[in-house]
């Protein structure tokens, strides 16, 4: 794609110079141009097709322990200089503007994009919604409502800083989701399924939205006859790709360096220690195309990389952004991300996953006399200070005598990160990933999660019936 740079290099240099003029030790310009399309079908009707564009830049100046930040939607030199001046206000010492030599960063794209969303007609995007609606309604008369949504986004970024980094990225993301409501004698139940990858419209060459809708419908229908989830601590088997959100919440957030340097994580001082079952090797990797959390460079211009966080149960490292790494005299691990040019970057996960073990998934189930089988997880949340985390279920069943039996209604599961990781006693070889959105400190970014089928010997299930 032969698009012009978001900002000319000589302008970037003058803006960096102005940002350093009051004595700043580090300055950065982050520019972003985001275009997106969203289409929603609801209640049998294409309700809305919307398109939008947001572009702007943020200037960051670091002096000592202090960061100044200002952003603007005005990408002209005058607009950028005004932002640089506002960000530089945190630095009070005198200083002189200097010319920063810039060196382009080369980083491979995690994957190629074959069909850029803006080259695909709006009709074809709408057609997907209708196909999903038809397929979900065909799943059974009890399906009373279907909502399908399509979204694509192209995000071009440019990052330059006073250490000479000049990096650019062109990120394309496409997603599709279906939510069904089914009505039965005991009320309404919902089912959800989605796909999301860093691909263009070619995503739909391999993903059949009809099948995806059928899965959402089946989830809603199966819960119509579901019994309430049990209450209490039981063994839990998580199906492959049901949502590696378990690891994202149970330890991912606690391994983010901002929580570490502020001593607000249970994993502080644990590098080199056994923090999980030896069956656990956990990786955060922003280079795996076309997973939802991938990119060529992070929002600080650092190339994405593969970081092993936990190896055979031993904590090997945390995740770092520029500011926290600088404080420790090391380099960023490519985990500096932000929601948009309106936000300061912070330490964020990319694609976080548990790698394959050697067990057979069917054997794991067969050797679990009783418990809960989670086929699909919902969202989750963690308190990094205590390590206590919750995650919800979207599709779960009772396990009786090593077999999946009755469907269960939705419930949250609660556990303590380090404790639950130690209780993993079986890991299968059927790895799969799922997309998600991670929220932290008011900012949302796309992430991937993944895990093979695994068993936890005891997790508290927050249902209403005796376990």
């Amino acid at each position: 794609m032969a698009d012009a740079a978001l900002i000319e290099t000589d302008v970037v240099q003058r803006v960096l110079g102005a940002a350093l003029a009051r004595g700043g030790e580090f300055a950065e310009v982050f520019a972003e141009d985001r275009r997106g399309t969203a289409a929603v079908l609801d209640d049998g009707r294409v309700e809305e097709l919307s398109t939008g564009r947001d572009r702007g830049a943020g200037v960051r100046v670091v002096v000592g322990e202090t960061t100044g930040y200002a952003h603007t939607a005005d990408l002209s030199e005058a607009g950028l200089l005004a932002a640089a001046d506002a960000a530089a206000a945190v630095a009070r010492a005198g200083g002189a503007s200097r010319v920063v030599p810039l060196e382009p960063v080369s980083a491979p794209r995690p994957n190629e994009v074959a069909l850029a969303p803006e080259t695909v007609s709006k009709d074809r995007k709408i057609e997907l919604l209708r196909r999903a609606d038809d397929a979900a309604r065909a799943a059974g008369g009890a399906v009373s409502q279907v909502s399908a949504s399509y979204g694509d986004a192209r995000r071009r970024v440019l990052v330059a800083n006073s250490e000479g980094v000049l990096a650019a990225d062109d990120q394309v993301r496409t997603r599709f989701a279906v939510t069904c409501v089914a009505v039965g004698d005991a009320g309404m139940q919902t089912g959800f399924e989605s796909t999301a990858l860093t691909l263009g419209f070619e995503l739909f060459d391999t993903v059949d939205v009809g099948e995806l809708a059928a899965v959402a419908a089946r989830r809603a229908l199966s819960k119509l006859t579901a019994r309430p989830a049990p209450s209490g601590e039981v063994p839990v088997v998580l199906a492959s790709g049901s949502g590696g959100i378990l690891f994202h919440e149970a330890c991912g957030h606690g391994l983010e360096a901002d929580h570490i340097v502020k001593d607000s994580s249970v994993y502080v001082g644990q590098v080199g220690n056994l923090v999980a079952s030896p069956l656990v090797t956990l990786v955060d990797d922003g280079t795996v195309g076309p997973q939802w959390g991938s990119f060529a460079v992070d929002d600080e211009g650092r190339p994405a990389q593969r970081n092993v966080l936990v190896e055979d149960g031993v904590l090997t490292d945390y995740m770092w952004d520029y500011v926290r790494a600088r404080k420790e005299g090391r380099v960023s691990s490519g985990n500096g991300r932000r929601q948009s040019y309106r936000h300061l970057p912070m330490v964020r996960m990319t694609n976080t996953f548990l790698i394959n073990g050697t067990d057979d998934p069917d054997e794991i189930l067969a050797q679990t006399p009783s418990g809960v089988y989670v086929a699909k997880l919902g969202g989750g949340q963690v308190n990094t200070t205590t390590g206590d985390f919750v995650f919800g279920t979207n599709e779960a069943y009772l396990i009786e005598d090593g077999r999946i039996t009755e469907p269960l209604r939705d419930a949250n599961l609660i556990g303590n990160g380090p404790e639950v990781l130690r209780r993993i006693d079986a890991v299968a070889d059927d790895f799969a990933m799922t997309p998600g959105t991670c929220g932290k400190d008011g900012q949302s970014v796309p992430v991937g999660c993944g895990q093979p089928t695994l068993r936890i010997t005891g997790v508290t299930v927050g249902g209403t019936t005796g376990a």
Partner: protein
Amino acid sequence: MYVSRGVETDVRAYDGEVESLSSAASAGVGIRVVDGGRQGFAYAGSLDQAVMTETLAEARDNARFATPDEHVRLAVPDGHVPCDLDVWDEELAATPVEEKVRMALDLERRVRAADPRIRQVSSADYGDMASEAAIASSTGIAASTRRTLCSMSAAAIAGEGADSHTGVGFSAVRGPGDLDPDRVVVDAVQRATRLLGATKARSGRWTVVFDPRVTSTLLAIVASALSGEAVTKGRSLFAGRLGEKIAVPSVTIVDDPTDTRALSAASHDAEGLACRRNVLVEEGVLRGFVFDTTSASRAGTTSTASAVRGGYASTPVAGCRALVLSPGPLDAPAILADVGDALYVQSVTGVHSGVNPISGDFSVGAEGVMVRDGLFAEPVREVTIASTMQRMLLSVLHVGADLEWLPGVAAGQTLAIEGMTLSGS
């Protein structure tokens, strides 16, 4: 056509220094075109004339792809007179950034010094914003709103090692003069320290007493089920239950954006109609829902001026703005004394994953303090509480007198509900 612009300042203090200082101005436009019952929408983060012209053309083009729907239409002036709201504090613009920085640094220092058990203040923030929005339509709507918001918050960590707990205190008001830093300090410290030594409680059925902040979170879920959009599309646990008893008689729920005390108070809704007071649940009986123009038409009624929108980048939808549960006679200590033994819940987690406003299934993580003989006893963590929304509304024992105006769509007060399932050890 909807335009908005705003300025904001955020200061974060850490360890006696300014960790970050952000200042920003932003603006944008969202344009909705309705043509023969078909709606198209486009937005841009700019008020540049050329960009707006391009955005209008996009919105017009997008309308071609929607399915015609007789109910999709723009709001028409309905004669309601807008209330005279003063939610703009001039003092905000007059406060120098140095003063805002001083407030954040001061707050951090005070939280650190407040109690020897506080070993860390992971954030101490000052934030403010001044925003304006205007809406005009070809159907004769012309309205504008403006507001200021100002807040302070602190997250304190008490304890050591595995027995560490975070407590958050905040104050959210219209202008710097109304901030209550004392309250922020006390809340942050008390909420962190009272959890020290917390353990998992035994599973069983308990009366649960919710802190006002948690009640506000629960009401926000009730709010989503009272949206005319959810109801007319059969996606609410309240659909088809108008006139039925859905709660005990002590429960009266009103959405009143014209009450200046609500942080989200507004003279006009997101379609430009004058906001008004809407009674939704009266003495336990479901009396109404909140509607925007389209969902009202679908339900065969008129808009309750309850259109809300996330900003210029999204379209209006029916929603509550300032939900209030009418206060009861007892304050928090009297409620605890009356229930005797209960779990007092200070905060909940997993609300998005564990509460379903369609099925009503309810299961959240909780931490708090056991109440024994009406007094706070041992702290509790890593438990879940579960029930259904339907059953909870019919099991309310007490609605507190201690109403607090909190950020978000709902106010909160102490709330006691019996017969919830606690899952722990």
